[in-house]
């Protein structure tokens, strides 16, 4: 158990039609830690993330049972989902540059939330792009369409956008799938810095990435939470046989 839980899943179950995606998951994620989630394909990792900012609502066939507390409030009963989503930044596996300029991509969320002052926006856009290690590459062409950037740049743009509404939780879903190793290492360094400011939930297929970054790691398999522990313990002395086989690359 964590002293200072930021996110708490309480007996959370999700069903897509008849197919269970999460079965009775109870889990706590502490403040300002990097929390790794690993597991084979179809084990419910992405579903878990979607429950945090309630984007699970957009999956029509999904039924959610249980509770998800973010900062002490049950988000399943929340009326104002927009406020929730502003507190949570999401980065998905495939980079999505919105068909707007690079500047407007990053300024999108602040504008929608009512920030219109040009100077404030300029400063925020620069800060987010710097945090995402993209500023040096795009500072001279902020009018360029976001969709024209390369794949790795678009993924960093996605990260900058996720940071643009100053979230307190950053969720990354296999962010490194579509980008090259060098960019991946750059972003990993950024994450270690961002940890000072926010809680980071890192879903990854690369177990070594979780080992490098995460303070604690959870292992999901077949839509169940198998084990959660300090990363070092989970990787060296896992309590569960299944976990041991997975982190050693024997299955999954």
């Amino acid at each position: 158990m964590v002293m200072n839980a930021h996110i708490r899943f309480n007996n959370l179950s999700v069903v897509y039609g008849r197919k269970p995606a999460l079965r009775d998951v109870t889990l706590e994620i502490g403040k300002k830690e990097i929390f790794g989630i690993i597991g084979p394909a179809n084990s419910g990792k992405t579903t878990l993330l979607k429950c945090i900012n309630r984007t699970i609502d957009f999956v029509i066939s999904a039924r959610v049972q249980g509770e998800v507390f973010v900062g002490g409030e049950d988000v399943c009963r929340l009326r104002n989902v927009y406020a929730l989503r502003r507190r949570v930044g999401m980065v998905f596996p495939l980079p999505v540059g919105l068909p707007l300029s690079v500047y407007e991509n990053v300024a999108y969320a602040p504008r929608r939330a009512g920030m219109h002052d040009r100077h404030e926006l300029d400063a925020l856009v620069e800060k987010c792009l710097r945090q995402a290690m993209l500023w040096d590459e795009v500072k001279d062409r902020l009018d360029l369409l976001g969709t024209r950037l390369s794949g790795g740049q678009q993924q960093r743009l996605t990260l900058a956008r996720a940071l643009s509404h100053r979230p307190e939780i950053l969720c990354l879903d296999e962010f490194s799938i579509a980008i090259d190793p060098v960019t991946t290492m750059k972003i990993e360094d950024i994450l270690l810095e961002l940890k000072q400011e926010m809680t980071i939930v890192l879903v990854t297929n690369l177990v070594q990435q979780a080992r490098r970054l995460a303070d604690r790691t959870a292992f999901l398999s077949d839509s169940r939470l198998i084990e959660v522990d300090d990363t070092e313990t989970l990787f060296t002395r896992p309590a569960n046989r299944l976990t041991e086989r997975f982190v050693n690359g024997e299955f999954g």
Partner: protein
Amino acid sequence: MFRLRACAHDCPGRNGGDTDSHATLADAIRAIGSGASPAADGSRPGAGPPPVEILCCPRGGKCIPGKKPRHQFFVNARATGSGGDGSELAPWWGLPTAADELLRLHRAGELDLDAGQLLRLSHREVFTASSLETWKKTKETIAKYVFMTMALVLVIPVVAILAYILVKAWPVLSPSFVLDNPRDFMTTGGIWAPLVGTFFLVLISLLVAAPVGILAGVYLNEYARDNWFTRTINLAVVNLAGVPSIVHALFGVGAFVLFAGMGRSLLAASCTLAVMTLPVIITSTREALAAVPMSFREACWNMGASRWQTIRTIVLPNSISGILTGVILQVARAAGETAPILFTGAVFFTPVPDHGLASFVPYGLGDRCMALSMHLFTLATQVRGVSDELQYGTAAVLIGLVLVVNSLSIGLRVYLRSRKRW
């Protein structure tokens, strides 16, 4: 006696090419490998060396090979090293390899040649088309020309109709024909009044149909969940699109002329046209919206944007070209329809002012009006003594109107498409 031959295309012929005679099959094969055969000289660049054949001749008898070889192998005579299995797709590399492999097969008892039978070793470069690939190319060509023919067949009637009408209408086509009102029971004069009538009919029907259709399309594509209500609306839209225009006319009489109390008027006719064009506007709007990738919407929602903010900032700006194209094409259709306005507001003839500002706005919303399509119908069937030229002139202006509107739509599409941003 085995005869080793290297010959050009007419190989199976009696005396084609140079020949060497060998006593046994093994000898003949070795002769291939030693490079003694003419195939190895490679003196014919581009075409590749001709095939090498071993023909089994009866001792002393005539040597006439059958058409098909008993054994067929392939070799890339220019390649070196070893590789391939002698098949068409993986030829042996080089004649020495081929000879080794043939000898091995011969020793294994898999090569036997009776009198008159043939073993052919064809040359095949890596990128030479196999028989399958040649057939593939042929089919490709056939398919292309079949489709092209159909496209041309489609164009011919359009060009023919346009040319015919233009030639017939040429004598009357002049600015005054367009700008004058019909006179003397429509046997002389121009088509200004019906032209203005059509313009207002289309304009008002557009003002009614476009907002309703576009907003309904946005709802159906962006908000509606897949439930019985949505499915019912979809069914209604599809069915509405299939209703014949004369039925729309009767509906217009019932709903607008009688029930809504508009009487037979410009407004009632426009509303009927609007109902007729709605389903296609809805459908084209939905298709244009559906073409915007879902990932854009999800990215926005994840940042806390509402559905409406997402639609306004991302979805609509990137689908507006498709939506407008659908709307404009419906304008062209509405301009040409006769049936829906027949009972609801269009008349054969109504006196209109000839001059001044009033001639530009000759009808009020509650007035009956003339329309081009109706005018053409009248000229052709209802009035005696109208010259052919006048009828063709009217048709030409109507078609011209449709063409102008369609070109406008294509132009707009090209312009907006060039600004599309992904």
